[in-house]
């Protein structure tokens, strides 16, 4: 058994001991014959290979806890971390692995992509684990639906990020005499005050996904839940080309004038550091920004404030990280895979992982007192938003549309924001034609 992952190893042995292969085979036959559980053969534990891009400090620490747990259960963890481009490099690796017929056991895949991989018939159904551990009861329905393909769980969610946050350094606000904003008008008033006092109003990194995160927040604020859903989930022509969308672009352009002109290519956490150090007053970013504040030893509610992006109170744009599970052949590896799926939802991992990442645990029965003020607020807002139609998938984080449509939106938005002379009405036209061609 265990041929696949130990090919090289066996090969080496074969050279030295020609009969080794036969012995291994014999051993396998005997263990089958005696109906010994294979996991009891100590020399042959299942391996679970995990492809992910959780490489930054807090994330790496969180993955470490997952790894320890899987190891403790007697399995081998094969780490395959590929950083860069928000998972773009990892996706390339995954596609080539799938084409070569040798996908990893688990891969970090999100949102609509899970359906794409499911449709290719490559994902395995996690019926046993999900039933045994009552996933349906543990997970919010909207989240569970994303993890299912054809009615079966094929992926495990690990967290829920909230995207529509505004991060504020209150010391800077105090020095400049600015007020915490709750509407877009107040936001610009605060920005003006900060600018006049010599601070950068918005810390920002000029990467397509960051530009689009700001765009998405503005869209939610101006179009409202329904309009947002129509534009970015249903890709409704009217919502995409309407007057309101022109206003979104106009506002985005205005907001851009409050950002650092040297922002191109800057990482989000470098931007976050500017707010932390007091060079800038605000950052428009999802809740992962909090991990930077935590790492800097700051306390939520005191050293920094997290407020819903102005005009989006009551809404919750979500970005869910999940591990999709691929079909495997080896019995032991499947056991290891199932163990990983189980452990990923256990309270221990959920706590450590989400404390480090700044996100909300995906389990609904967690003790929230273990988390800080921002996450607690997030948890309350999530439950409120869930009742109405406030729970919306994040377009900028590949939860709302296919990658092709998302890419088309990114191109238009980032190009618009980087060209101070761009015309909002033209941008709207470009947006709808780009989406049409990508559909």
């Amino acid at each position: 058994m265990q041929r696949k992952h130990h090919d090289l190893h066996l090969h080496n042995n074969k050279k030295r001991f020609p009969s080794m292969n036969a012995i291994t085979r014999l051993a396998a036959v005997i263990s089958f014959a005696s109906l010994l559980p294979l996991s009891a053969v100590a020399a042959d534990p299942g391996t679970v290979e995990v492809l992910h891009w959780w490489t930054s400090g807090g994330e790496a620490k969180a993955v470490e806890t997952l790894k320890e747990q899987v190891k403790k259960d007697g399995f081998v963890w094969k780490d395959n971390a590929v950083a860069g481009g928000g998972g773009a490099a990892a996706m390339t690796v995954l596609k080539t692995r799938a084409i070569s017929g040798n996908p990893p056991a688990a891969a970090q895949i999100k949102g609509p992509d899970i359906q794409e991989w499911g449709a290719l018939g490559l994902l395995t159904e996690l019926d046993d684990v999900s039933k045994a551990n009552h996933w349906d009861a543990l997970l919010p329905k909207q989240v569970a639906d994303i993890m299912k393909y054809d009615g079966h769980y094929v992926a495990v969610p690990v967290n829920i990020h909230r995207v529509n946050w505004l991060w504020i350094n209150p010391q800077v606000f105090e020095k400049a005499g600015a007020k915490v904003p709750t509407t877009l008008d107040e936001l610009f008033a605060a920005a003006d005050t900060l600018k006049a006092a010599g601070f950068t109003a918005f810390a920002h990194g000029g990467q397509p996904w960051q530009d689009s995160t700001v765009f998405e927040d503005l869209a939610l604020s101006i179009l409202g839940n329904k309009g947002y859903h129509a534009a970015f989930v249903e890709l409704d022509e009217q919502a995409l080309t309407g007057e309101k969308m022109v206003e979104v672009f106009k506002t985005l352009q205005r907001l851009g004038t409050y950002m650092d002109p040297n922002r191109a290519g800057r990482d989000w956490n470098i931007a976050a550091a500017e707010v932390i150090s007091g060079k800038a007053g605000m950052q428009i970013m999802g809740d992962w920004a909090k991990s930077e504040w935590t790492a800097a030893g700051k306390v939520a509610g005191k050293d920094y404030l997290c407020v819903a992006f102005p005009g989006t109170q009551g809404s919750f744009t979500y970005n869910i990280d999940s591990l999709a599970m691929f079909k495997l052949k080896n019995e032991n590896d499947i056991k290891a895979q199932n163990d990983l799926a189980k452990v990923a939802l256990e309270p221990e991992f959920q706590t450590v992982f989400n404390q480090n990442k700044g996100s909300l645990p995906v389990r609904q029965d967690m003790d929230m007192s273990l988390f800080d003020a921002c996450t607690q607020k997030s948890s309350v807002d999530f439950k409120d938003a869930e009742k109405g139609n406030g729970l919306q998938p994040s377009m900028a984080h590949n939860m709302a549309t296919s990658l092709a449509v998302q890419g088309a939106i990114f191109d238009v938005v980032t190009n618009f924001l980087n060209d101070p002379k761009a015309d909002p009405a033209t941008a709207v036209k470009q947006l709808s034609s780009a989406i049409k061609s990508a559909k």
Partner: protein
Amino acid sequence: MTKPLASRGFSLGRLAIYGTLLLACAVYLIPLIVMLLTSFKSPEDIRTGNLLSWPEVITGIGWIKAWDTVGGYFWNSVKITVPAVVVSTLLGALNGYVLSMWRFRGSQLFFGLLLFGCFLPFQTVLLPASFTLGKLGLASTTTGLVLVHIVYGLAFTTLFFRNYYTSVPDALVRAARLDGAGFFTIFGRILLPMSVPIIMVCLIWQFTQIWNDFLFGVVFASGDAQPITVALNNLVNTSTGVKEYNVDMAAAMIAGLPTLLVYVMAGKYFLRGLTAGAVKG
């Protein structure tokens, strides 16, 4: 062709020549100096000082952290690079030998097709190549990665040897042939011994290319077998809190050290090899 442009000794012309050359030296060296200085600074020092300021305190912490992160992948790169370089050079030598001394109908066409292969963007071959490797049972193995490097290094190694052997007089081979020497005898006894300069060029070129490769490494190797460039990418593309440029720079130097050493130590063979005929076209 060593002869004076202006008469030797001190003159305005020579001063201008030396001035230009030294200025160019500075331009070429600045990035390296900046990287070195930065790798020995502390993160605070990097923020407050400027590019060329001397480190306030020289600290090796960047190098230690960098080695902890990427050092383990160093040997993977060696294991991938050495066989790929050796095999692709050998194949290139044989191909060059055939294409220059044993030309047959269609061999020029083959050479043309091969040359065009130099310009194939490697991104296009990722999917079909991984499909092929899967069929061969070599998916995600070091052997598979080595094979890919050999295949896509072949165009340049063949080009080097073919151009080199083209400048070898045919008469030499003809005479050996009359003496009854066979295909491999001529190659082994006559051509190989005179190929040392071009072998050096080829080894240096291939070593640099394969050691520095990221794309094939990230796609065709997995987990613990990844080359150092992939580890470097993981480090540089991941920033937590304050970006530790000193660690990034130290890691970049560690990853680049073997190729740098090869260029510095073997640079003169490189030029010698090029002089000996590689550039004769």
